[in-house]
């Protein structure tokens, strides 16, 4: 299901790649950000487009909404303004006008020109000075907010890039340009916000259901009692795990049903998959349980150990 962005011509009224950028770069009163180096995957993200799932439109949005909200507060934006979600290899940007940025999330190195800057603080950026977000020491993703927000054209109420359906702007590319909105307010008067290193082991609270009855009792023992490993094919759609397979009590196919954020779906091979922000709206494999808070997975690199706990079993 990954990579389903249409390869061929888009329908007449779908947003064409880059059109949002070209359309509003001139009108945006806050200026333009130039992408000097996009990195492996840098996307525009806000709080997503909830409310359209009945039409097959995924929620999308920042994988750690709290980190994006914080970055926005630090630069004086409304919490839901669009920023950049930067993956592992970092990125390099240049703002044509003087502005304020803030980076949150992983403990990445940040430079404004040659000056090192801190994660979790507002950083003043002189006009034309490059802003470099480096690879994080631990963790996987950073969020960068700029005063005024990234001002690409919203699609169904959101500027988020949905990597599953292709809605929203395409991922950033080297040499690309994005419009920046007019600054809304002064940067927040905070001194410092804590950045904690990403743990080598992620513990996730799981609530069983809705299809726990599709699994055997030994399957649930394995789910709560053994360690899983995050695999490299994980992405914004889902965190794919490998470990003890979960045997089913019921064979056959489950008719497609609606999915929530954090749903742990178990395909035929028995290896669990935790759905993240770009998850499909419906799915045909049984969901054994739902992870209460998926945000730790936003910082989990491939190879990270994942354990589940819950009120039913395995709680401390």
């Amino acid at each position, binding site marked *: 299901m990954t990579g*389903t962005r249409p*390869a*061929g011509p888009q329908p007449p009224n779908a947003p064409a790649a880059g059109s949002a950028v070209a359309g509003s770069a001139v009108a945006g009163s806050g200026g333009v950000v130039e992408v000097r180096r996009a990195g492996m995957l840098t996307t525009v993200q806000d709080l997503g487009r909830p409310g359209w799932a*009945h039409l*097959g439109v995924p929620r999308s949005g920042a994988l750690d909404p709290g980190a994006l909200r914080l970055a926005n507060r630090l630069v004086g934006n409304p919490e839901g303004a669009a920023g950049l979600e930067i993956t592992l290899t970092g990125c390099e940007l240049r703002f044509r006008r003087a502005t304020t940025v803030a980076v949150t999330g992983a403990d990445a190195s940040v430079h404004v020109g040659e000056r090192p800057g801190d994660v979790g603080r507002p950083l003043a950026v002189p006009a034309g000075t490059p802003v470099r977000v480096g690879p994080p020491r631990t963790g996987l993703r950073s969020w960068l907010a700029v005063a005024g927000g990234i001002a690409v054209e919203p699609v*169904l109420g959101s500027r988020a890039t949905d990597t599953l359906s292709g*809605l929203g702007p395409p991922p950033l590319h080297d040499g690309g340009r994005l419009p920046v909105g007019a600054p809304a307010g002064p940067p927040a008067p905070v001194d410092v916000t804590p950045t904690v290193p990403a743990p080598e082991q992620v513990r996730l609270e799981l609530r069983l259901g809705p299809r726990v009855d599709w699994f055997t009792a030994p399957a649930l023992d394995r789910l709560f009692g053994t360690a899983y490993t995050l695999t490299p094919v994980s992405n914004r759609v889902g965190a794919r795990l490998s470990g003890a397979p979960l045997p089913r009590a019921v064979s056959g196919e489950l008719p497609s049903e609606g999915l929530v954020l954090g749903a742990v779906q178990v395909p035929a091979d028995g290896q669990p998959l935790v759905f993240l922000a770009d998850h499909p709206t*419906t799915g045909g494999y049984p969901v054994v349980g739902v992870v209460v808070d998926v945000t730790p997975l936003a910082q989990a690199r491939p190879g990270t150990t994942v354990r589940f706990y819950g009120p039913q079993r395995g709680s401390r």
Partner: protein
Amino acid sequence: MRIRPVGAHALLLDCSDANQVEAWRAELWRRRERGDLDVVEIIPAARTVLLDGLTDPAHTAALLGTWDPSPGTAGPSPGTGGTDIGTDVVEVPVRYDGADLPTVAGHWDVAVPTVVRRLIDTEFRVAFCGFAPGFAYLTGLPVGLAVPRLPTPRPRVPAGSVALAGPYAGIYPTASPGGWLLVGHTDLPLFDVHADPPARLTPGTRVRLVPA
């Protein structure tokens, strides 16, 4: 109908059949419209309706026990859950030239023109959307005419392809990989982010696949 908890903020209504799904879908959309139900998503599917974004699922579960949707009185089909777009049938003009028509004819044990005639004569209804924005699962074909998917999906199915799989008919709103059996093609735009609602075929909508 059985209510299953889903995480901390959602409920899954497990229904006995597709008609009960449609009755609950319509009832829940009406209740939300009236302000009786505070929920972010109401997602119908094959045998279930998912309510997501509930502040107090236990309270909602108790409320659901007091509501009684009657099949057949589903009434108007609000497109976004907000606008009443009426009960008109959406006519989709289809060129019946799909590459898999002979395969469908084989499964149904009839000639190709009979396949086309049956599709033209069927009144479909959008059971639910999924797979891609604006992709509608259409029910209405008689039981027994279900067809299997291709053993190997095509890497690219063109936008507007009209196709069959399992008990459903569907139309690909955008080009994508796909394993459904292709029976025809339409030029009708099915998903437009600037339209309200953005999907032409929303859950509950009646549909006819008329000859282009």
